[in-house]
């Protein structure tokens, strides 16, 4: 059981290295001058046999809450009470040592994670069996793949039932078969009386297994209740999340372009988070410095690893602009559905002549806008693109 009352957590940061030194020399009595409230007056109760899902945007305070509840992070005010054994699953696989074998890692990490020597001795066989790594017991971890490490981490963390289980972004790891086994284990723990708190961006999966969901926004609980209503609330928060203004740049060192602004929006509101399939508008406003006979406006979207996800331009779309006079201001929009997988992306653009920028380039900008795509109501799928697939079938007896 966990009971949290008016819990507030602030992160202390430093403006300069001198502040760090001052804090160290004064034993933390003079803290850094940067302060950020990650959790604000949180009240929460989780009972045995209950799975609570926590959702929220990046920076909402989800991981901080898990860290505070697991005792890793200190809090400034409020209180929390917990009864029973606790285990937290954070970043599976991290904390293992690559030089040690799988079995040695299970032994040493298991003890630190709260197992007794006897328990580890009894459970080692079943841990490797559950993870499907029985043949790799004595292999150094540096020879494991990332997926194998995650599986071993999950198997170790859930080898026996804790009274309280805290899970941060480790809801479903490994292949489909292992994910199924993992979810069954959560259900089994729940039925046997564990109180489970899960933080995840996998909204559909979380909705499926949670008894109750909590929406965190800017360190506060915005909603606590049924998973379906929690998702609606979350989508509403995302929809309400608008930028103050678009990206603007003046005094550009270009002979042809004086200034530009660029805005990514949907439903007439500038945003940084979009749902998969949501129709968005990418709007350019460009002020021309010198006459341009033929202008192509193009944009490209790269994923977090820098891989090009998509790119097009007005030339390919046969909507080029001709004979632009000096001093003219152009407003140009691309409208498209965000049919890409969930994740973080950045957007760049190019202003040039003809098919591509190699002929004559007026302006090229990478990483102008950062945005995120969330799955929201869309069913789970694999791969970088979203195809709005529909099914049709007939059964003949």
């Amino acid at each position, binding site marked *: 059981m966990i009971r949290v009352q008016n819990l507030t957590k602030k*992160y202390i940061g430093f403006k300069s290295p001198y502040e760090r030194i001052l804090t160290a020399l004064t034993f933390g009595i003079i803290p850094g001058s940067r302060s950020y409230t990650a959790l604000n007056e949180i009240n929460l109760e989780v009972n045995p046999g209950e799975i609570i899902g926590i959702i929220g945007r990046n920076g909402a305070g989800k991981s901080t809450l898990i860290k505070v509840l697991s005792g890793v992070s200190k809090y*400034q005010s409020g209180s929390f009470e917990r009864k029973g054994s*606790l285990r937290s699953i954070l970043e599976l696989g991290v904390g293992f040592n690559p*030089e*040690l074998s799988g079995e040695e890692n299970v032994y040493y*990490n298991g003890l*630190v994670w709260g197992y*007794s020597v006897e328990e580890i001795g009894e459970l080692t066989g079943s841990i490797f069996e559950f993870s499907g790594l029985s043949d790799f017991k004595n292999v150094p971890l540096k020879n494991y793949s990332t997926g194998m490490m995650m599986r071993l981490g999950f198997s170790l963390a859930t080898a026996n039932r804790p009274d309280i289980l805290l899970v941060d972004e480790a809801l479903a790891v490994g292949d489909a078969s292992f994910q199924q086994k993992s979810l069954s284990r959560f259900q089994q723990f729940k039925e046997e009386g564990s109180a489970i708190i899960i933080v995840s961006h996998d909204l559909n999966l979380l909705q499926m297994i949670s008894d109750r969901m909590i929406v965190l926004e800017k360190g506060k609980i915005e909603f606590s209740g049924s998973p379906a209503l929690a998702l609606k609330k979350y989508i509403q928060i995302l929809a309400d999340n608008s930028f103050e203004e678009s990206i603007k740049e003046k005094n550009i060192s270009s002979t042809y372009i004086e200034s530009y602004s660029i805005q990514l929006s949907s439903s007439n509101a500038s945003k940084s988070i979009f749902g998969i399939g949501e129709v968005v508008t990418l709007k350019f406003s460009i002020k021309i410095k010198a006459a341009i006979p033929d202008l192509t406006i193009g944009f490209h979207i790269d994923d977090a690893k820098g891989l090009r996800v998509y790119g097009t331009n007005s030339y390919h779309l046969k909507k080029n602009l001709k004979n632009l006079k000096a001093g003219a201001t152009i407003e140009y929009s691309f409208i498209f559905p965000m049919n890409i997988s969930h994740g973080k992306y950045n957007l760049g653009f190019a202003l040039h002549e003809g098919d591509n920028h190699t002929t004559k380039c007026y302006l090229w900008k990478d990483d102008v806008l950062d945005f995120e795509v969330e799955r929201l109501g869309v069913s789970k799928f694999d791969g970088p693109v979203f195809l709005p697939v529909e099914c049709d079938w007939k059964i003949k007896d």
Partner: protein
Amino acid sequence: MNKRIKNLLVLLILVKRDYALQFAGSLLGILWILIQSLSLIFIYTFVFFVLNKASNLPSSNLDYSSYIFSGLLFWIPLQEMLIRGVSILTENRQLIKRSTLGVDLFLWIPFIQMLIHSFVISIPVFVVLAWVGSLNYQLFYLSYFMMIAVGLYLMLVLSYLARINILLKDISPIIRLFSQFLFWTLPVLYFPTGILKEVNQYNPLIVPIDLFRFIVLKDYSLQFPFFIFLIPLVFFIIIFCLTRFKLDEVVMDHL
């Protein structure tokens, strides 16, 4: 099982893990500790024995090599503990973040290792001291308790240094330099005389090493009054109390 006993068991296993990581793939494994420490002791003893003989340093009833042996037996494990202890939290950060055992347990790893090193090195050193007739048979076994006490004394300040190492990223180079100051201002390799003796008094380990030699060496008389130890002891206790007061609140988020 009692929580304290359980934590002690986990601590011993963490010590074993630390050795396993330090010597992973090494043929001699933990034997390196003995080889490293004894080599250092014999090199220092040889060089300073020659220097001492050549320059006719103040005469003593004591055998000079026994004097150096006892000094290095005291110093080497403590220096290792100091240097290792400063980075113990940052090196185990991923483990600490997932553990419900708390930060303090990890701080005891270098302490236990210091005791093991001290014990391992002491065996050949005591054999040599007994062979040359310098061993104080009546008290030498107390040296193990002495090392526990001095280790605890250094832990008072180590709990602070390990924590600010998280905040200031890495203070290990400063601590290595500081340990050199400690070493050369401590009469490990020379007799405390003249201006050096004046300087020695300000070293926080001066009374402990003096007592250690008194316990280990036959015919050794104490060189420094005990009361000068009270000032650094009080100072270290204050540092420890202040560390426990507020520092964790700031530091742990930066781990």
